[in-house]
């Protein structure tokens, strides 16, 4: 019976009211040749059997609940206060739909408006949308905005190779049909080299803050050149870092995108996460996706509503710049609750803990013969270690000791074979870091 409430008596009453004898009669328009195929699926199972089967699957994973986690590379194991999940579990939030009817959706609308406001505060931008699917698709949508801002006359998109490799892949997936020239990341171009690519055909240049290697680069020059040439500068930024370091707005960004998963969303094997998107007032009306604005009701009471709807696909149809018609609503709520709980000083403290612990780990590892930490630039909570052995070998040794080691950069950057990207957060107690260091020492 699953979750269907009908009894046999009711079915008969309903069929009689409709004027048919069986439910099957209602499917007369389906070609008879293809009607009522068998579905070869296992089951059905009771709730307790499903729970037991799925628990076994879950326990087959090596996860951050059981292992010390030193892997980041775009997805981060941060502390999430218990209150976040308690609020997310309220049916009023998670079983609601898109707030198309604002009179019955002020909860979702105000929470999203607060999310937008807090993302503006973090990024130093004037406006944020209600979120995209993830950081990668936010970047892809930023490309669309930049092309529009350039009135579709600027076709060059410059990407730093130090942006998350998967983000760059997604940009290419999204824009494969649109005749853009996506360049800059074919090799390991420096920022200086990238800035030489900027020309009057350039719609935008995107950089990463910190970059995929955890480093904080100096963007002053490239911002200057881009703005001189009329190109937009897009920052892909880790929002947690922004609690401590200068905002992209202060550094000259025109659009800031990124993955807001570090703000209260669990790892969940890669999703659902949420891509944030913030920009300056000038470009607000070009943003794709949902945006919540303030207004008043018929009595003059302050209230919130989805606004700039005429940009969206359900109204503009083929003239819309994006087909997106959801946001990551519940994840935006999670970020909203998380940021409210952390507040100004809490979020900063989390960033500081991550920073200091990462630097402690880097210092200790750098001392070991056979490991070399990249230290030419400042870093936040991730850093690159050059090893003497394959990273997979090191990680196998670590997992046997209850530690999930760093990300193998050689997978994406052939020249970085035997380079490991380690991430340290507030979740890593000193004892865990020391254990990591000890094992690495033993492997050196």
């Amino acid at each position, binding site marked *: *019976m*699953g*979750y269907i*409430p*009908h009894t046999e008596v*009711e079915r008969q009453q309903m069929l009689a009211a409709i004027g048919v004898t069986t439910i099957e009669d209602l*499917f007369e328009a*389906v*070609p008879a040749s293809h009607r*009522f195929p068998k579905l070869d699926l296992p*089951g059905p*199972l009771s*709730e307790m059997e*499903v*729970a037991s089967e799925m628990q076994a699957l*879950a326990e*087959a994973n090596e*996860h*951050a609940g059981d292992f010390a986690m030193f*892997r980041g590379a*775009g*997805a981060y194991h941060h502390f999430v206060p218990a209150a976040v999940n308690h609020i997310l579990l309220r049916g009023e939030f*998670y079983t609601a739909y*898109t707030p198309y009817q604002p*009179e019955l959706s002020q909860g979702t609308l105000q929470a999203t408006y607060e999310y937008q406001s*807090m993302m*503006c*505060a973090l990024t130093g931008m004037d406006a944020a949308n209600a*979120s995209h699917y993830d950081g990668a698709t936010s970047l892809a949508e930023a490309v669309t905005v930049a092309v529009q801002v350039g009135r579709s006359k600027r076709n060059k998109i410059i990407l730093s190779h130090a942006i998350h490799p*998967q*983000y760059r892949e997604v940009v*290419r997936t999204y824009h*494969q*049909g649109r005749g853009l020239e996506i360049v800059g990341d074919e090799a390991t171009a420096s920022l200086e080299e990238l800035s030489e690519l900027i020309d009057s055909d350039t719609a935008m240049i995107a950089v990463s803050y910190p970059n995929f290697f955890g480093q904080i680069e100096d963007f002053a020059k490239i911002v200057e050149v881009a703005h001189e040439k009329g190109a937009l500068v897009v920052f892909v930024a880790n929002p947690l870092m922004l609690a*401590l370091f200068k905002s992209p707005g202060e550094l000259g960004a025109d659009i800031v995108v990124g993955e807001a998963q570090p703000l209260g969303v669990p790892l969940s*094997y*890669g*999703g*659902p996460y949420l891509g944030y998107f913030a920009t300056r007032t000038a470009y607000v009306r070009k943003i794709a996706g949902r945006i919540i*604005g303030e207004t008043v*009701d*018929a*009595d003059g009471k*302050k209230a919130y*509503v989805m606004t700039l709807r005429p940009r969206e*696909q359900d109204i503009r149809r*083929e003239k819309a*710049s994006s087909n*997106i018609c*959801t946001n*990551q*609503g519940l994840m935006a*709520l999670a970020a909203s*609750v998380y940021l*409210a709980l952390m*507040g100004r*000083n809490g979020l*900063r403290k989390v960033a500081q803990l991550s920073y200091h612990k990462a630097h402690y780990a880097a210092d200790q590892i750098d001392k070991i013969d056979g490991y070399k930490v990249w230290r030419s630039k*400042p870093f936040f909570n991730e850093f690159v270690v050059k090893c003497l052995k394959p990273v997979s070998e090191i990680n196998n040794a670590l*997992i046997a000791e209850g530690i999930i080691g760093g990300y193998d950069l050689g997978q994406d950057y052939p020249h970085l074979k035997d380079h490991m990207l380690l991430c340290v957060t507030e979740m890593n107690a000193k004892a865990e870091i020391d254990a990591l260091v000890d094992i690495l020492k033993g492997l050196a």
Partner: protein
Amino acid sequence: VLEPLIYDISVPGRLGVNLPELDVPEADLPDDLLRDDLKLPEVSELQVVRHFLKLSQLNYSIDKGFYPLGSCTMKYNPKLNEDMARLPGFAFQHPLADEAGSQGALALMYQLQNWLAEISGFDGVSLTPAAGAQGEFAGILMIRNYHLDRGDTERTKILVPNSAHGTNPATVTMAGYSVIELPSDDRGDVDLDALRKVCKEQGPQIAGMMITVPSTLGLFDAHILEVIEIVHAAGGLMYMDGANMNALMGQVKPGELGFDVMHYNLHKTFSTPHGGGGPGSGPVGVNEKLKPFLPGPIVDIVEESTEEDEAPLYGFVMPEKSIGRMKAFHGNFGMHVRAYAYIRVYGGEGLRDVSRHAVLNANYIRAHLMDTYKVPYPRYCGHEFVMEGHLEGADDIHALDISKRLMDYGYHPPTNYFPLIVPEALLIEPTETETKEVLDEFIDAMKKIAEEARTNPDLLHNAPHTAPVKRLDEVKAAKDLVLCCAPALPDGGAL
């Protein structure tokens, strides 16, 4: 105000969370790179809890009542699924964890791929798209890459019926294609003559067609096999928008009808919660022809098991000619977990029952309301039906007025003004999880509103009367464009 903004209850120095002390030596901080203010609120944990509890109460939701929002499939979201998604082994699994240490998650995704393929009669499924709209986009990109791979660069147009969701034409544009809009005939189906004509005239330019089954009118196109045949004959591929799959499970398999590709909405058909507008999940299914083009990665068996009772080794693979990645990592895994639980509870016959009862419920409401409201197409509907929200003898009453008045009766309104081809459309989708009593009460309310429309139209014009707010000034919102609050922090947010 109903509830102050979180910024308005902020007090400098207040903390909402207990954080650990630093247990390692402090490192030097690069002072010149640090910011000196951060305009975030400062509130206590209890304040946060009360704030969001209050906000939650301003929402309507499935857990609260009937939500017949057409084309959105607002069915019950089982509590079991929420618990499953929160199991530590799922919630705390890193997306870049070694595959050897992710076999539970991979096995789950592999099964779900296969089950979704079986349900719709396809040969391959990718779970990566994050929502229905992304699934559509992946689908059209696959069609595009299929043609290009064959060396056919002329096909740049996609047929889209005028009843389609707005996402369909928008998707076509995103893929760099253009739209040919097809008219509907007077039964609400695709106008076959028009289709034949356009295929004849522009055949070599037609990359494919996007069609929703049942249509957004809630109708199963009576000529669907002909439609597919005509488009295929012209060299185009057929994309099925699976948004309305809740009408079809166990009734017909789109792959068997001849569709080449479709997307699933896990947040509609497979009960994952809508979350106030997301996250969704929009897997795509394809036949053999398009399998090499699936967005990646997908899960496959990378090493068969040697022992009888042993599981094989699963891993991610990138399909040979993949259109690429739709997002970072591998889709909205948390939604895959929920859909897995849902399918597991029902099994094959159970899912057939889901669609049977979804269709039963829709036809039941339709049968009771067709004498009161104009129901344009005299046919049994699928899981939803459309009717017109204006009434004889109440000329100044619009679909919007009826919708807002329904709020006073305790209901979420149906979708209104869509599909576009029906004037004053009200699109009603009850789903299978609603009881007959709920439907009966809703029918009564709709009839009462029809009467009120004639006897006391202002009651409708000024509705809602009992919602937390009255109708909103949407023009002001778009004109003044206040998208984030200027936080009134006494210390300016100084760090």
